[in-house]
């Protein structure tokens, strides 16, 4: 019972953060809302019992990646968004109905599923750091190594792009 209340609290916080991100005018406020979203996701991971993933979510996502986002916003001195004087009619007449249609379709699919399991019980995962490590280095070794190579390529690309012109 307590777990369900906590789930709704943190899920509500996550959705509120995401909506706030969309509606804020200044990019730094949006970045801070995204940090709130990351934090509530970590709390949801904790509720599921995945403690290592929750900690890593905070350390990597909220603590490193978002710091770089905030850093870029501070360096580029991004100002508030400007509102364009003429409202776009495409957005109003095609966008809103399209989004309504997509959301209704997704809800229809979710409601009419026949193969609904019980869902994941909160606190169900009993793995810990050790279980994740064993899986990562035995069953999932190839994706792990390929991801490392991908990150290395990204680093090299960033270094090449940031180099001074001779």
């Amino acid at each position, binding site marked *: 019972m307590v777990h369900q209340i906590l789930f709704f609290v943190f899920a509500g916080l996550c959705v509120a953060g995401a909506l706030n991100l969309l509606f804020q005018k200044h990019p*730094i406020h949006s970045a801070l809302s995204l940090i709130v979203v990351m934090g509530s996701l970590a709390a949801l991971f904790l509720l599921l019992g995945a403690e290592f993933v929750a900690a890593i979510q*905070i*350390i990597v996502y909220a603590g490193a990646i978002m710091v770089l986002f905030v850093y870029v916003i501070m360096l580029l001195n991004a100002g508030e968004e400007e509102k364009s004087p003429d409202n776009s009619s495409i957005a109003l007449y095609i966008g809103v109905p399209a989004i309504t249609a997509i959301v209704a379709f997704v809800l229809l699919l979710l409601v009419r599923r026949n193969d609904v399991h019980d869902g994941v019980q909160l606190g169900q995962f009993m793995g810990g750091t050790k279980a994740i490590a064993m899986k990562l280095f035995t069953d999932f070794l190839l994706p792990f190594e390929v991801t490392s190579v991908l990150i290395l390529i990204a680093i090299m690309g960033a270094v090449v792009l940031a180099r001074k012109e001779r």
Partner: protein
Amino acid sequence: MNETIKLIIFNAVKILVVTHVLLGAVAYTVWLERKLIGRMQNRWGPTRVGPFGLLQPIADGLKFIVKEDMLPPGVNKPLFILAPAIAVVFGLTPLAVIPFGPMLDAARYGWGEKAQGLQITDVNIGLLVILAMTSIGVYGIALSGWSSNSKYSLLGALRASAQMISYELSLGLSLVGVLMMSQSLSLRAIVDTQAGGILHWNIFAGLQIIGFFVYVTSAFAENNRIPFDLPEAETELVAGYHTEYSAMKFAMFFMAEYANMFSASSIATLLFLGGWHPPHPAMMLGTEGSLAYALSGVFWFAFKIFLFICFYIWIRATLPRFRYDQLMSFGWKFLLPLALANVLASGLVIALRNT
């Protein structure tokens, strides 16, 4: 009384004691720093307010409370007020998972059945919680500098956040060696593997001397202490990221810095110097599980943290500060490879031991 109520009372007492002791320790660390640095520079520190200047922190606290709390024009108000709060909150949270002493057999004193540890909570991922809190503490500094609408603050904040995220890497990696030796992320379990006297501490028996060196250096950089304190370089940036802050908010940044120093010293003590174990097992009072044993454990823990704080202050009085590019290249080109090599070497030693 009901078991649950006893548990709640015990935990509430623990929280109150730890918080108040820490905040008092933060205030008196400022006094200790001024005294020690003064002595090293051949002058008295504070001597006028109370005997040996011992009431100086109280006078400082009163000053901070009654000073005018300015809000400069043009600042981003919500972020200006939020930033010191973030710095203080995430500087104090690591205390919740740090074990101060051994398990206390509460049944002996009629207070419940199982043993209670002198720790607020013992989570399985204690070490990662501390790393997470230090990662988020960076925002206090970055946002304070940016929201202050001042060039000095912005530069100080940018330098500080870049420095902190760079040294977080070697900080985390230096702890992986200890992790491999003790096979657990829970801080109490890591301390328990170091029982038995000075030769069993992780710095000697766990062969983590290089890990210790990397950790201490990265901790100095994380806390923006000399020799890495360019973000608050008094001669260059006026006061860096806290230039525009006045009374209580400035005090909160101060508290956050010293609380971070405490957390870093606590982690170094727990992971490398054996936590609350004495140099020789005979140096504890009482038998295991009694109150005297627990309190002497707390004494040894506090003693080691005191030595670390004196080390921090000694270094501040002695070394000049790094230039910014020297600082960054030191972190990325020297400490990070050294930490990685430490991880490899520790893994090799463990694999050879197990065959």
